[in-house]
């Protein structure tokens, strides 16, 4: 049995340990050795107002993004899972098309739509709705829109499996007892999919935490998030020890979240 264990489980684990875990330990080492040995960089990271400010902003943006993404995903998943065949096919296309398209194309699309001379502002001005263009990208709004757009499809999958697992008979029973649509939805259906909601929220939040590409393209530089701060500390004005410490803090936060998620939702909704 040991032989099969090595043969089946070994390759991937050895592969990831060599390519990922050990190099990552190198970053951990910076955080406690550069510029001098000790935990000074962690103290610096947790007291430096630049770092803490960026961490708070990141948490706030990620929380906003998570709530919006999961709510939006819930609405479209409901139709995908429970709608008629045409509605299902259409909603499936709407979920899968963006899912398969690169984050770069999507960010580019948002830039074309939302910038001051973008399609939306141009139309709104031509129709006389706006007199001055409304700033919708190169700010936090743009970042949130881009991130929500990227993450909705990821939230759909755990929600869909939770909704598919809902026992139809319970819903019919509730209707049989005279409950209206609204009441069935809020008091029966939603509670039965809580696991999926938590799973989706966890997945979205964790993915959002380390976002780099979308904020870089849509944020216009004024909403620095933690991923960009790490980049800054490694590349722009180098302080590898501090960059390493922030990375380790971020990884530890994600690990805690995943552990908590396992406890609550028993795996991310799969």
């Amino acid at each position: 049995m040991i032989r099969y264990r090595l043969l089946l489980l070994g390759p991937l684990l050895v592969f990831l340990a060599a390519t990922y875990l050990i190099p990552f330990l190198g970053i951990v080492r910076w955080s406690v050795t550069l510029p001098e040995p000790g935990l000074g960089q962690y103290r610096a990271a947790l007291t430096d107002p630049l770092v803490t400010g960026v961490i708070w902003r990141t948490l706030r943006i990620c929380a906003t993004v998570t709530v919006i993404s999961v709510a939006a995903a819930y609405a479209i998943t409901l139709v995908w899972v429970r709608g008629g065949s045409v509605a299902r096919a259409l909603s499936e296309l709407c979920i899968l098309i963006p899912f398969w398209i690169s984050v770069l194309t999507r960010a580019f699309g948002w830039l074309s739509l939302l910038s001051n001379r973008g399609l939306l502002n141009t139309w709104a001005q031509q129709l006389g709705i706006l007199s001055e263009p409304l700033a919708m990208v190169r700010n936090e709004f743009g970042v949130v829109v881009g991130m929500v757009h990227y993450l909705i499809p990821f939230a759909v999958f755990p929600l869909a499996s939770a909704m598919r697992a809902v026992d139809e008979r319970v819903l019919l029973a509730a209707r049989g007892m005279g409950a209206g649509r609204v009441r069935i939805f809020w008091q029966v259906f939603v509670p039965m999919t809580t696991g999926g909601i938590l799973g989706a929220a966890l997945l979205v939040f964790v993915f959002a935490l380390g976002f780099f590409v979308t904020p870089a393209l849509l944020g216009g530089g004024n909403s620095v998030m933690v991923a960009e701060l790490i980049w800054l500390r490694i590349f722009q004005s180098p302080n590898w020890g501090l960059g390493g410490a922030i990375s380790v803090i971020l990884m530890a936060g994600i690990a805690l979240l995943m552990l908590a998620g396992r406890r609550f939702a028993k795996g991310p909704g799969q």
Partner: protein
Amino acid sequence: MNGPFQRDQVEILSERLKRGQISRRDFATGLALLLGTSAIGLRATPAAAQSKDLVFVNWGGDAGPAYDAAYGKAFLEATGITVKQDGSGPTEGAITAQVESGKPSWDVVDADPFSAEALGKKGMMEPIDYTVVDKSKFRPGFGWEYSASTYFYSYIIAYDATKFKDSPPKSMADFFDVEKFPGKRAMYKWGAGMWEAALLADGVPADKLYPLDLKRAHDKIAAFKGNVVGYWGGGAESQSLLLNGDCSMAIIWSTRAKLIEQDSGGDIGFVWNEGLIAPGAMAVVKNNPGGKDAAMQFIASSQDPAKQVVMFEMLAQGPANPAADALLPAADAKYNPVAPENFAVQIPLDMPWYETNYGPALDEFLKIISA
């Protein structure tokens, strides 16, 4: 392991390799035998690492094709060495990472002289070999231990000419004045030039700027922050901020000014007044894969005034070699940061100040703009 004997053997080997008497593989095998270990030994010998390419790292955008047209192609013809363009931006940390990796893949970088000096003092850059690079082809006072002056650029004000055609902004004070010049602004994300702009706007005379009063500059910027729509990190971003109409005025690199003017059909204008002029330079990464000599030759080849004129025409880089001035078409002088009438109204950035103060100042700056 590098006893004099082995070293001598290695030299003989590499000599024969150069003369083509033995194949590269024989050479590697011979070396491995001599040094006992194959992999580590090979790395220690520049001859084995010598390749037929140089990687020139610039800041992206239109710079890549321009460098290739002006310097790369001619260098290939003259020496048979291909110069590849990497636009990923040679930031201090990226160069550090290259050197620390033990096997850099970059050769020549388009770096700020002050960061080349700072890195050079940490042993990460090759000193410029002034027997190859000709110091007399610089403007006096430009040319450093670890980097060679190759061009000039400036942080200048660009503005929406459809709005401010009749009374364009004339000073940094105008840039910071949203009453007289309504609309949003865009600034440079990595601080350089922005402190000077804020202090000039706050009434500090140009000759009293250095050492910079950072507190005063940051107060000014913090108070102004609400009017800034974006902080660009690269030239193309500054272009799109203006072209997309996201701001009515921006401080941009003068190298982008001509492009923006053309792309907007004249809707975006720019002024040299109180521009903050800075030198651009080439530097060589320590232990670069293409070899120090090839890299120095490349830098020397870039001193040719005719080639610098190409860079001026394609990227509006002010020529480092004063001999190029005479070759520039007079009509284009308005795009040239070192044309006498433009140079006179600008203020040079103080490289020694940046060398010692840039890192901490940038941290403070980022704290303020991202708060």
